[in-house]
């Protein structure tokens, strides 16, 4: 895979704010009237409007989580849940308005599309502004489109799957998502079709004091395979922004899905995202996740291994700097025989940042002969940073192989001295050690993202010495 121009990326690019221009921005807050207005703006079919209103009812009944990071600063009355950019969906970058296109240009998205992607979607605030896919995939029946188009054009597929994997009753922010969702991607890969080059969706939130609630729904049918990449970023504002997306993945018998995420939200973002996959017989889902941004993240992708022989792997890294509280982890439910899960999670914290690994492994009574191995490692770069591991292991049958390994450590002064004795500066030595620590994760990322991740690590470490 060719490298893209993401190599030259720096934080400035993420922080470029476009003027807060929009065609329509909904009033702040949440009322049935606001939800109806969103449904009207989006031309929802009746069932979807009803769905939104019901979700709002659930939202009003549910309490905020009583565990994890403190999110009491979030005041939904101050958040605009729907911001429609001044453009329609385009299938050519030329047609995307200049300032929006420039943003994606600087993020390297159109370039990446040319070089190494089979399809690209780009969302700006609440709506998808660009979507395209290679012709040959279209001919094979692959569907890759924005979620609104899918609701209109593939109602049966959508109705059958939409918020069935992640029901609105899961938690308060999923209910919120159900009420105000907008944008996102829909992918359907027909039976036995192997999509050999990744599809990528990129989510950009430009508007201040607003939320992004994109919905990603992917169905990989029997024997098919797909690699899907999502990237997210936003410029920094002083006020809180909210991201409460939802990802639902259906991996059918013998299918394979790899879901990669690089999340670099700005550090005023509350990232309360929900991701789940249902995995059927002999199918596999692999998650690869890099979390760098946001002020607070609560993100725990989940694999539900329903079919016999279903497999999942989770490879994730989070990097928390000053003022960041990244509460992430992985959940897996083993619901059938011979299922297996492998978790390799790492976290890095510095300048008082906090990383928590929170996980669940449940192996049910009927999941005999299943295997699960969990390894999590944390690296703290100084004495003021915090790292924590909160695993829950719920094993309900004896016939399993289960292992859990957790390591928390500080960056070693001896290792720094060793590298410095070879002429390497203290800053470079630390970066080398951190990159080396992250390497098992970064090597799993698509190459341009691995490069971006190393750039981000260097950027995060700059000026962190002394």
């Amino acid at each position, binding site marked *: 895979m060719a490298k893209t121009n993401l190599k030259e990326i720096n934080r400035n690019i993420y922080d470029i704010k476009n003027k807060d221009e929009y065609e329509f921005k909904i009033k702040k807050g949440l009322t049935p009237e606001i939800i109806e207005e969103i449904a009207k703006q989006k031309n929802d079919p009746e069932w979807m409007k009803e769905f939104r209103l019901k979700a709002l009812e659930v939202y009003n009944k549910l309490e905020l989580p009583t565990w994890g990071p403190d999110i009491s600063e979030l005041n939904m009355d101050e958040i605009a849940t729907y911001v429609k950019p001044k453009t329609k969906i385009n299938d050519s970058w030329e047609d995307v308005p200049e300032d929006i296109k420039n943003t994606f240009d600087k993020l390297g998205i159109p370039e990446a599309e040319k070089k190494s992607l089979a399809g690209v979607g780009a969302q700006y605030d609440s709506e998808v502004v660009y979507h395209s896919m290679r012709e040959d995939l279209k001919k094979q029946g692959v569907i890759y489109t924005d979620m609104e188009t899918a609701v209109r054009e593939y109602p049966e597929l959508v109705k059958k799957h939409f918020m069935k994997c992640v029901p609105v009753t899961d938690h308060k922010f999923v209910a919120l998502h159900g009420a105000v969702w907008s944008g996102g991607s829909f992918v359907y890969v027909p039976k036995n079709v192997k999509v050999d080059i990744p599809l990528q969706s990129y989510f950009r939130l430009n508007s201040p004091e607003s939320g992004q609630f994109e919905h990603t729904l992917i169905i990989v049918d029997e024997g098919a395979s797909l690699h899907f990449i999502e990237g997210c970023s936003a410029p920094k504002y002083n006020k809180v922004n909210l991201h409460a997306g939802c990802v639902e993945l259906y991996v059918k018998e013998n299918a394979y899905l790899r879901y990669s995420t690089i999340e670099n939200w700005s550090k005023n973002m509350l990232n309360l995202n929900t991701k789940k996959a249902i995995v059927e017989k002999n199918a596999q889902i692999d998650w690869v996740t890099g979390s760098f941004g946001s002020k607070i993240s609560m993100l725990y992708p989940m694999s539900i291994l329903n079919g016999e022989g279903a497999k999942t792997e989770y490879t994730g890294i989070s990097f928390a700097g000053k003022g960041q509280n990244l509460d992430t982890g992985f959940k897996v439910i083993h619901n059938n025989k011979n299922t297996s899960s492998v978790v390799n999670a790492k976290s890095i914290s510095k300048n008082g940042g906090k990383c928590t690994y929170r996980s669940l492994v449940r192996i049910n009574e009927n999941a005999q002969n299943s295997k699960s191995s969990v390894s999590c490692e944390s690296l703290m770069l100084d004495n003021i940073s915090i790292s924590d591991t909160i695993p829950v292991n719920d094993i309900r049958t004896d016939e399993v192989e289960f292992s859990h390994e957790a390591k928390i450590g500080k960056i070693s*002064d001896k290792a720094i001295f060793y590298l*410095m*004795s*070879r002429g*390497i500066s203290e800053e*470079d030595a630390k970066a080398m050690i951190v990159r*080396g*620590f992250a390497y098992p994760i970064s090597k799993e990322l698509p190459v341009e993202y691995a490069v971006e991740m190393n750039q981000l690590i260097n950027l995060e470490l700059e000026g962190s010495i002394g």
Partner: protein
Amino acid sequence: MKNSILEIKNLHVNAKEKEILKGIDLKINKGETHVIMGPNGSGKTTTANAILNNPMYQKTMGQIIFEQEDITNLKTDEIARKGIFMSFQLPEEIPGISVTNFLKYAKNKTTMQPVKVFQFKEEVKKYMEELNMNPKNMERSLNVGFSGGEKKKNEILQMLILNPKLAILDETDSGLDVDAIKTVSKGIEMFKTKENSILIITHNTKILHSLKVDYVHVLVDGKIVKTGDQSLAKEIEENGYNKYKNI
């Protein structure tokens, strides 16, 4: 004076608030090989670390001059770039960085020149053969899972590639079998030139059987108590350090 490469003057060093070196004087000229011998706990490793200014050791008095320049308080990486190398007694394991990338990076940093890739590869290959090293190790993470012998050979490989003006070898012979000691000695011989200087730090004399040295210093309780030629090492091999302990 112009032949002097390293000069240590009345060096006092603390580790964990305890005085380890209690006034050391040492002068090494270009092309010379010196040995510091001494029993465990006498301050040998502290001497090596103090020259490289390891922040875990504090200098309370004295001076270190390298090529007429005071390097006492320079940072470790600056000292390395002046041309001082240290082979570690216990080389650190660094996951996720391959030996080859590390070597290339270190070469680039110490010489402050771009590394010529082809030439570099040839050089590495040649030295690895000489040191009986497994070429597969080049792609492994630095020292991770290496045996004691592999780690020490890897240190010698780094010395040969970085080609410093002064190499300090801290207990390079410890924990090695006879064959590995021979290989390591061969590496040191390859490094020795009229210009390069070597400071060997050891508590036993095995490595000196196959290596010609110019001076032997006996370090006991933080002080150099005797300096002599190679015959001093032989004498210590026979009689031990006891007669020097109460000077």
